[in-house]
C-alpha cells in the first residue's frame, strides 16, 4: 500500500511550513517535500509607496530578523538616493544594530528552539521538547539563553528605538547615535556575554564532535555555498562582495558587485511551493543551487576577523580537513562561532568613540535604482528597488535568506525521510528527525513568505497512490 505522511505545522521554527512524504508499497520514500504555504505579495503592494517608508515597511516581512530588512532596505535606498557613503557614525550604529540582531537571533535559535533536540534527543518526550522543558532540567542554560537574547534585543532597542520593527536606520544614515549612558549600560555586562558566548561555542562544538557519526549521515550532502566577504576575504555580515564556492571549496565567483546580482542569481518557480528555488545562473537550475547562512559563511570566508571567533573557526575547519564542511547538523556549531564573532564585534564597537558622533545623515544625487546585499542571521539577503521621480517605488525584488536554502532543506527532508522512515512504522519521534533536519537551517518561514509563503510546517506520509497514511498535525 502506498502512503502519504504529513507534518503540519513544523514547529520550533519561525513561521509556518508543511512537509509531505510519499512512500511506495514497499515503504520506500518516493517523494519528500517541504512546502511553503503562504503568499503575501510584498513586491507588488509596495509599489507606489514613498521610498523613505520602505525601511520601516518591509521589515514587517519578519518579526524575527526585522533589522535585516530594515538595514537592507536602508542600504538599497542609500544607493537609490546616491547617499551610499554614509558617515562613520551612521555605519557603526547600523553595524551595532546588525550584530545585536544576529546575536539575539542566533541565541534564540540555539537555546529556545534547537536545544531541546540536542539535550533530550531527536525522539525525546514531546511534552519536554521545548524551552520550558529545558528550563526545568537545565535552568542555568535556559536562563543564559534568555539573557543573551535579551542583550541583543536591548542593543536593537538602543539603536533602532524598539526591540521589534524600529525606526533607527533611514536612507542616508541613522536618526540617533548611542549615548554614553547607553554605551556604559552595555559595557557593564559585556564580559558576562563574552563568557556565555564562549560557552555556547563549546556546547555546540562538543555536541557536534560527540555526534559526528550521526551528523555525517544525517542530511549530509555536498552543495555550493554563498555569502559576503570583504575585499580581503574576511567575513563581513553587513556589507561586502558576494562569493560562491563549490562543495570542495573551489571558487565559482567572487568579488561580485551587489548591483550586478541579477546576472548571477535566478530563482526557479515550482508549482508546489510559494517559495522559489534560487540558483547560480552559470550553473543552471539543476546544479546551481547553494546553501547560505552560518555554515556557508564560515566555510567560504578566509577568516572571521575577530580573534576568538577565528580560533573557533580553525577548530571547526579542522574537522573537515580545511575543506568546506557539508553537514547540515554542523550549522549549529557554525552559528555559535558567529555568535561569538558578533559579541566580539559589539565589544569593539562599544569602545569606539564614533558611536557618539553627531554626523548622522548624508545626502546625494538621486539615482532611482539600488541593490543591497547583507548577511542576515539565516543567510544572504537581497533587496532591489526602483524609485521614480515622485519618490515612489516602481519595482521591488527581494530574495530572502531562507529562500536560498529552499533546495537544501528539501534535500535534507528527503535524506532524513529515506534513512529514518523507510520500511519503519512511523511514529512521532521519527518524524521529529525530519524537523530536526529542517531546524538545522533555522528557517525563517515568516521571511520566506514575504512575497511567498508563510509555511505552517506539515509532514505528510503518502502512499504511492497519493493517499495519506499519516499526517503530523492537522487533524
Amino acid at each position, binding site marked *: 500500500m502506498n502512503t502519504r505522511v504529513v507534518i503540519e*505545522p513544523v*514547529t*520550533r521554527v*519561525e*513561521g509556518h511550513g*508543511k512537509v*509531505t512524504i510519499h512512500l511506495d508499497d514497499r515503504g520506500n520514500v518516493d517523494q519528500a*517535500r517541504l*512546502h*511553503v*504555504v*503562504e*503568499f*503575501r*505579495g510584498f*513586491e*507588488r*503592494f*509596495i509599489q507606489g509607496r514613498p521610498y523613505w517608508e520602505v525601511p520601516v515597511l518591509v521589515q*514587517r*516581512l*519578519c*518579526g*524575527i530578523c*526585522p533589522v535585516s530588512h530594515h538595514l537592507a532596505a536602508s542600504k538599497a535606498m542609500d544607493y537609490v538616493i546616491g547617499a551610499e557613503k554614509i558617515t562613520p557614525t551612521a555605519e557603526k550604529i547600523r553595524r551595532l544594530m546588525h550584530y545585536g540582531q544576529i546575536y539575539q537571533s542566533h541565541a*534564540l535559535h540555539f537555546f*529556545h*528552539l534547537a536545544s531541546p533536540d540536542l539535550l533530550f534527543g531527536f525522539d525525546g518526550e*514531546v511534552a519536554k*521538547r521545548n*524551552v*520550558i522543558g529545558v*528550563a526545568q532540567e537545565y535552568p542555568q542554560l*535556559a*536562563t543564559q539563553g*534568555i539573557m543573551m537574547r535579551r542583550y541583543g534585543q536591548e542593543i536593537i532597542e538602543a539603536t533602532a528605538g*524598539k*526591540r*521589534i*520593527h524600529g525606526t533607527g536606520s533611514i536612507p542616508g544614515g541613522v536618526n540617533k547615535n548611542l549615548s554614553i549612558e547607553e554605551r556604559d549600560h552595555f559595557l557593564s555586562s559585556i564580559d558576562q556575554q563574552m563568557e556565555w558566548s564562549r560557552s555556547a561555542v563549546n556546547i555546540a562544538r562538543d555536541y557536534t564532535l560527540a555526534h559526528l557519526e550521526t551528523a555525517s549521515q544525517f542530511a549530509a550532502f555536498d552543495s555550493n555555498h554563498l555569502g559576503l566577504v570583504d575585499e580581503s576575504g574576511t567575513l563581513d555580515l553587513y556589507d561586502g562582495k558576494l562569493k560562491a564556492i563549490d562543495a570542495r571549496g573551489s571558487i565559482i565567483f567572487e568579488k561580485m558587485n551587489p548591483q550586478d*546580482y*541579477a546576472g548571477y*542569481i*535566478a*530563482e*526557479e*518557480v*515550482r*508549482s*508546489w*511551493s*510559494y517559495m*522559489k528555488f534560487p540558483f547560480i545562473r552559470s550553473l543552471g*537550475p539543476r546544479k546551481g543551487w547553494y546553501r547560505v547562512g552560518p555554515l556557508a559563511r564560515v566555510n567560504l570566508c578566509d577568516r572571521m576577523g575577530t580573534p576568538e571567533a577565528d580560533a573557533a573557526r580553525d577548530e571547526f575547519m579542522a574537522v573537515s580537513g580545511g575543506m568546506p564542511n557539508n553537514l547540515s547538523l554542523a550549522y549549529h556549531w557554525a552559528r555559535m562561532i558567529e555568535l561569538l564573532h558578533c559579541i566580539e564585534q559589539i565589544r569593539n564597537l562599544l569602545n569606539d568613540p564614533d558611536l557618539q558622533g553627531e554626523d548622522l545623515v548624508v545626502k546625494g544625487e538621486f539615482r532611482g535604482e539600488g541593490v543591497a546585499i547583507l548577511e542576515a542571521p539565516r543567510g544572504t539577503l537581497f533587496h532591489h528597488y526602483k524609485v521614480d521621480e515622485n519618490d515612489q517605488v516602481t519595482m521591488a525584488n527581494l*530574495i530572502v535568506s531562507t529562500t536560498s536554502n529552499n533546495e537544501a532543506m528539501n534535500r535534507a527532508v528527503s535524506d532524513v525521510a529515506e534513512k529514518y522512515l523507510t520500511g519503519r512504522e512511523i511514529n512521532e519521534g521519527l518524524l521529529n528527525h525530519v524537523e530536526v533536519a529542517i531546524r538545522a537551517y533555522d528557517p525563517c518561514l*515568516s521571511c520566506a513568505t514575504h512575497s511567498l509563503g*508563510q509555511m*505552517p510546517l506539515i509532514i505528510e506520509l503518502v502512499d504511492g497512490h497519493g493517499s495519506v497514511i499519516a499526517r*503530523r*498535525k492537522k487533524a
Partner: protein
Amino acid sequence: MITKVKPRIATTSLAGCFGCHMSLLDIDERLLDLVEIADFDRCPIDDIKEFHDHCTIGLVEGGCSNDENVHVLQQIRQHCEILVSVGECARTGGIPALRNPIALKECLDEAYQSGPTVYNPSGTIPNDQEIPLLLNRVIPCHEVVKVDYHIMGCPPSAETLWKVLTALLSHEDVELPYELIKYD
C-alpha cells in the same frame, strides 16, 4: 490532595510576521515566571501540534490570508475561553492587507512572472493541492470568529503582553496605562 490544574495558553501565528510572538519572548526572564502560573498549549515554540480540549487564553497573531489561516483560527476559537487578537495584523489585517486593493493575480504575477531574477520558462504559478488557497482579501480575525480582546501595536510591547496575560490569568480587568497604548 487536589492538584490545581494550571490554565493553558494557546498561541498561533496566521498571516503575520512572528513579531508578536517575538515580543512575547521579550518578556525575557519573566517567561520562567509565566510558566509557573500557566502551561503552554499548542504554540510555535513547542511541539504540540493540536489545540488541547480546553485552553483559558488563546493569542492570535496575524490575520487571515488563506483558507488554512481561517481553519486554524476557527480551531483556536473553539478551544479557548478567551480569544485575543494580538497586534495590527490580527486586528486589522495589517501590512499583509496592503494587497487588498490589488488584484491577487497581479501580486502573483509580480512574484512569479516578472521579477528580475525569476526563472519560470513554463509560466508556473504555485497551485499544488498541498498549498493553501489564497483569499482574495486579507481579513482581520474578528471578521471570522468572535474575538474577546484586541491588543494594539506592531508589535505590542512585551510589557503590554505581560500586563494583559497576567490580568487575564488572575481574572482581572485589563487596564493599560497610556504609555502602553501604541499602534506602531
